[in-house]
């Protein structure tokens, strides 16, 4: 186990290092000049030169990269070129929004998917199963932005129950929850459709096994068998998908954030790339990479917890 964690930590560091080199190189190869995007079409040559000097864009590429890595290691991610505030502040401001949405989305996804998936498996080849399969097919097929628009039209424009978008922060918790309901549903429907199908087939797989029949024969109720014996044994594929989904929830909220005009990380990275705001893009990509790698790591750890037989292989 100790070796396993060591190996994963080294992998984590190497991944981040590789990502940092790639992002830095790509952002510098990409045509675009941060000074020009800030000062616009009427800017004079000397104003542009002064701004480049201010932003430290005149240093050689390698010096800038080494400085960036050195400062980042000490927790200083630099000043955003376009926002003119520390990148760390920008990210912290928006992280709460995106994480709130991702966590809410994940929780609703898990509740919906596990309930529906196990329910469908229990009703295998009956009406409930077909219903869940049909709904999940629909959920997978519907594009998230289109579903979002429908939700907005119904609940915000026609019924006026919920705001059509925006997020003013957690200072007013009730308003914050209300703002998050529609985006959470939009996120969770698509994700849980995928997960419900995985849960169903994993559960069906387990239900065919002998120990399930034994459990039923020993007098345990159908429900108890499902939740206490089938679900835990079906967890490995479910956790794999959940891990992938969590990573994509955090990084992939960009569409949802756009439709519901939420001030999250997805919109920030989009805007920063357009503005050629290298320090912000760099820090965000590193953050996303770290989230993906961490999610994978947690999934690997969970495998061992779920299925002790895997411990030997780790």
């Amino acid at each position, binding site marked *: 186990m100790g070796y396993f964690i060591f190996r994963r930590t080294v992998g984590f560091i190497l991944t981040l290092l590789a990502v940092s080199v790639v992002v830095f190189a790509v952002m510098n190869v990409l045509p675009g000049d941060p000074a020009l995007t*800030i000062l616009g079409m009427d800017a004079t040559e000397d104003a542009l030169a002064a*701004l480049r000097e201010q932003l430290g864009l005149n240093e050689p590429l390698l010096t800038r990269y080494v400085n960036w890595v050195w400062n980042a290691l000490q927790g200083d991610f630099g000043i955003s070129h376009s926002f003119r505030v520390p990148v760390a502040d920008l990210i912290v401001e928006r992280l709460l929004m995106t994480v709130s949405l991702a966590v809410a989305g994940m929780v609703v996804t898990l509740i919906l998917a596990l309930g529906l998936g196990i329910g469908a498996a229990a009703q295998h080849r009956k009406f409930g199963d077909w219903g869940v399969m049909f709904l999940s097919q629909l959920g997978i097929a519907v594009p998230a932005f289109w579903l979002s628009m429908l939700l907005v039209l119904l609940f915000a424009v026609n019924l006026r129950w919920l705001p059509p978008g925006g997020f003013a922060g957690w200072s007013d918790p009730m308003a914050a929850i209300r703002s998050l309901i529609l985006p959470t549903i939009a996120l969770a429907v698509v994700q849980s459709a995928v997960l419900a199908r995985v849960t169903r087939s994993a559960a069906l797989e387990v239900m065919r096994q002998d120990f399930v029949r034994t459990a039923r024969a020993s007098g345990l109720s159908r429900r108890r068998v499902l939740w206490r014996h089938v679900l835990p044994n079906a967890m490995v594929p479910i956790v794999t998908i959940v891990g992938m989904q969590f990573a994509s929830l955090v990084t992939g909220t960009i569409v949802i954030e756009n439709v519901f005009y939420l001030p999250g990380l997805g919109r920030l990275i989009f805007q920063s790339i357009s503005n050629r705001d290298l320090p912000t893009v760099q820090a965000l990509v590193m953050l996303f990479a770290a989230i993906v790698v961490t999610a994978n790591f947690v999934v690997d750890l969970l495998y061992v917890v779920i299925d002790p037989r895997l411990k030997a292989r780790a």
Partner: protein
Amino acid sequence: MPDLSRTLTITTLALSLGLGLSTASASADQIVIGLQQEPTSLDPTADATASINGMLTMNVYEALTIVAENGEVQPNLATGWEVSEDGLTYTFTLAEGVTFHDGSTFDSEDVLFSFNRAMAEDSVNPSKAKFATIDTVTAIDPLTVEITLSKQDAFFLFNMGQGDSIIVSEGSAETNATAPVGTGPFKFERWTRGDRLILVKNPDHREADNVALERVEFRFISDPAAATAAMMAEELDAFPGFPAPELLPQFEADPRFRVNIGSTEGEVILAMNNAKAPFDNIDVRRAVATAIDRDEIIDGAMYGQATPIGSFYPPHGTAYVDLTDAYPHDTDKAREMFAEAGVEGTTMTLRVPPFPYATRSAEIIQAQLSDAGIDARVENVEWGFWIDEVYSKKNYDMTIIAHTSPNDMGNFARGPDYFYGYDDPAFNDLWERIRTEADPEARDELLREGQRYLSDQAVHGFLFQLPLLGVFRTEVEGYWSSSPVVYMPLKGVSNGG
């Protein structure tokens, strides 16, 4: 299925949180305004982003002069001015008893500081060129400032009423990017980046009695469909720069809303790289002008909501001449002209920035050029790429762009380094005469000459004037219907009641 029903109960519970709670209520002295472009900083003297001016200039920040809706220059922080006989010395009298929002007093020292900052060696002012004619700025006494120019500048007073020439205080200039401090009728209260920016009324402003709004909230919504939903749900009271002309009819049909179609200073052009073959050949440029059909472009790209232009001057301006018939649309003739110039059948790139007016126009122009025998390849590029590759490095054949600055005919006199690649001593002389002509009528006559000259030279394909499309709740009054500048004063705006 008990499990399913429990799940549904939880979902219903979550949903019912929203029930019974109404959405943000609008009262008469408050307004919520939607903006498409999200600003990254809040200092118009260091960042050209249009929404900074749209929200803050003349609301939070003020300048010596202000430009009214009809384009007229009016007193602002300067209550009046005198111009010397030779037109080179301007003596401004400043408003008395004005304070900045941080409590510091406004006087001639602040004017001096602001101008020196904009003109300094290390200045990052996006319109530094506008200050180039200024020779000296002197504080005669606390309420008098004298500015001398090195040569006459017909646009000087107009330029003094722009976002890049606002008067800032030395104590707050450096932090304006995140916490703007000005002298205007509204004070900055709060900015949640990416979500909203809030202004409150400044009770100490000299015209506070005429300001109806107590609180102004700007919301940033870039997606046109989301903007529509937010208006329809009455989350917003106004969307003064509505991004999608195709979505306007549903607002026009709804009695809750009023749609405004005004004009801006934005001339949309099909720019041709005059420094590069084949566009260094005037016959090719004239052939392009003949090949394009403005009406079709306006119908297709702007859903009919734009005024065609035949040269580089806004149709609502006093010196406007209609030159849209200079090169009547004639595909066969254009084909002949291309053939005569020896470019028939060649391939050209049309690099387009990511604005709907540009990308939509590009497709139609591509088809029109194709009919006339030219294969135009459309390349949709993002803004960072466009401004570097097309604008700065002049690496393009054709592009489509709106020039939104007022009085910008001087672009054609910016020489071979400007992305037009157009260098014409005759026009440079003409522009110098326009710029230094103090008499408005004589200047208008020269501007007419300029329009005719540019049209005759067919420097670019002149397409249409970018419209100002706005959607407002019917209660909202006092908004400018057209804008001769890039700002939108809220001083005279009210929200019913």
